[in-house]
């Protein structure tokens, strides 16, 4: 394992290994400082970035940041690497790769063609020498289109997850939130409930409720109860109406063990859900959530910085051809992303890395109540992500998730962003909004008439 040295003025900076270079090159964040791996000074951070810029991309195929022998995520990344896709960029350094990504001739089609040749560590590395503007510019070139009961990720579209969580899984409360969201044109990415308690009976009840609502109104979207993958597997065995299989994933085997999963389990769940054949316009049916700091919070980070590990989580996700990948960027708390500056930066990094790796990236622009952030910061993040072409955003009633106890975006925020950037919902969902008389003659969302079918159905 080689050491890396960079001289800056009269100072010489030594980095013992590749993961140390990556950690020190990362923009400052509390999680890496907590782990004791962050650059101790800004000068050292710059030195690490210089080292990184001159490193050949091939180095990332030769030096694993987490040992191959002891980590199935590393094995997945190395064994799944596509040399043919890598050929286009194999001669480049990380710095060359950055310049190439930003160049005009490199378009979405070319980026899609190299995606399987880019490892998560390469994606993380190049992001560390890119400013926010660079992350936006490259991500905006990439469209990742997926489909299940509608089509997500098309140019000019912004989808949203309707998140009608309730602290006691109260059916009336959840139904009220769903109705509220649908009237705002929310829910084309998924109508997804985080259950207050993870058990089979509740999961099946909620799945049946969601499916009944979707069927009754013929809504071209997918539903999901975000239970543990093993609970969802049992629900599938009981022939419950499972559209999507959800699971939180992380970038190391040990962190995934902390989530109670392994790669084989995810594969089994995907196959099981495919047998239900519930998709109408596509068969992408996995839904993953991730977040920087998840490995550190499980003490399973192997001395690797949290952003690189987040990219490795995307390396896990892409194997399963997911419909949705959501970075819950500020959810874990200020121990890992301290304030709005760190949350915004991380949200842009995650979106960039995910898209570069070929994933249908969405984001929950969010923060916990003890973080140094507020709704103005979430406005900034969602607008930047909208400009970068994010596939979907999360929205909850009033931007306040009363079950998970954190702050996200409101239904109205999504409407505002769509209006600001001229974005539309998924095409099938937009058609449905028209059929439900929720659009005016210019295609804008309007308040429903008292006679609207959605309101009539819930009238006493």
């Amino acid at each position, binding site marked *: 394992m080689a050491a890396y040295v960079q001289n800056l003025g009269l100072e010489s900076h030594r980095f013992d290994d590749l993961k140390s270079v990556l950690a020190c090159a990362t923009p400052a964040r509390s999680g890496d400082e907590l782990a004791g791996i962050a650059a101790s000074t800004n000068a050292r951070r710059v030195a690490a970035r210089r080292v990184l810029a001159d490193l050949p991309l091939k180095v990332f195929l030769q030096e694993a940041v987490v040992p191959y022998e002891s980590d199935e995520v590393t094995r997945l990344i190395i064994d799944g690497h596509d040399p043919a896709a890598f050929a286009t960029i194999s001669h480049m350094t990380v710095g060359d790769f950055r310049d190439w990504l930003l160049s005009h001739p490199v378009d979405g089609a070319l980026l899609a063609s190299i995606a399987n040749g880019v490892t998560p560590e390469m994606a993380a590395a190049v992001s560390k020498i890119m400013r926010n503007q660079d992350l936006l510019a490259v991500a905006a070139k990439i469209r990742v289109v997926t489909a299940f009961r509608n089509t997500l990720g098309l140019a000019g579209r912004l989808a949203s997850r309707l998140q009608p969580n309730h602290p006691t899984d109260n059916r009336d409360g959840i139904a009220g939130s769903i109705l509220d969201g649908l009237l705002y044109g929310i829910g084309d990415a998924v109508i997804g409930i985080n259950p207050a308690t993870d058990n089979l009976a509740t999961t099946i009840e909620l799945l049946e409720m969601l499916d009944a609502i979707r069927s009754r109104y013929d809504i071209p979207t997918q539903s999901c109860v975000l239970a543990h993958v093993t609970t969802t597997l049992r629900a599938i065995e009981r022939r419950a109406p499972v559209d999507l299989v959800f699971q939180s994933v992380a970038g190391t085997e040990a962190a995934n063990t902390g989530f109670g999963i392994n790669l084989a389990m995810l594969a089994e769940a995907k196959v099981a859900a495919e047998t239900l054949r519930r998709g109408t316009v596509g068969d992408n049916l996995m839904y993953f959530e991730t977040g920087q700091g998840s490995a550190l919070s499980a003490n399973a980070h192997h001395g690797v910085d949290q952003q690189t590990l987040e990219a490795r989580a995307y390396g896990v996700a892409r194997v399963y051809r997911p419909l949705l990948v959501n970075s819950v960027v500020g959810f874990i708390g200020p121990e890992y992303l301290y304030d709005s500056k760190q949350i915004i930066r991380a949200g842009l990094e995650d979106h960039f890395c995910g898209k570069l790796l070929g994933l249908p990236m969405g984001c929950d622009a969010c923060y916990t109540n003890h973080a140094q952030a507020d709704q103005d910061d979430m406005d900034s993040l969602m607008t930047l992500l909208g400009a970068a072409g994010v596939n979907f955003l999360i929205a909850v009633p009033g931007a306040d998730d009363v079950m998970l*106890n954190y702050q996200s975006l409101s239904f109205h925020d999504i409407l505002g962003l769509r209006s600001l950037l001229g974005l539309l919902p998924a095409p099938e969902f937009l058609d449905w909004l028209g059929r439900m008389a929720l659009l005016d003659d210019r295609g804008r969302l309007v308040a429903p008439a008292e006679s609207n079918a959605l309101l009539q159905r819930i009238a006493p």
Partner: protein
Amino acid sequence: MNETVAITSKLGTDQRNALEQVLFFNANQHRMRNGIEHSIQTYGVPAIYEQDGLLRIRVGDIQGVQSLFAVSSQGSPVGAAVFLRAAHERFVVLHLVVAPRDAAGDDTNTPVLLKLMHGIRSAARRTRGVDRIELLYKEHNPMRLHGSLRLEG
């Protein structure tokens, strides 16, 4: 966050005076007055006692109270967290304190606070069934450890 601060559940009895200073005579106490009063009214008064050559913190007559200490490189406490598994799925942080420090404008307390929070989170993640942490000083707003995290033993 460059200063070395370790998180431990063990603190020698020779640090009793220092711990009393941090816990009971903290110059920043007034900033969390409402939360401290609520904690004491709900759970009881904290007290330091000695057991097996180590310092412990009890709260009223409640069983199962746990403590974590942030300790400087000199071995003295610079912070403490007192928490309890109040329900099957929930840790409650009864007290969370950091020593006021003369740092010429540097925010040296925040890293200690974050390390203590990380320590509590790690303890919660190691405890089967716990999926949220409630900070009494933070107006009862519990934090979820993860959206749909299920802990395995």
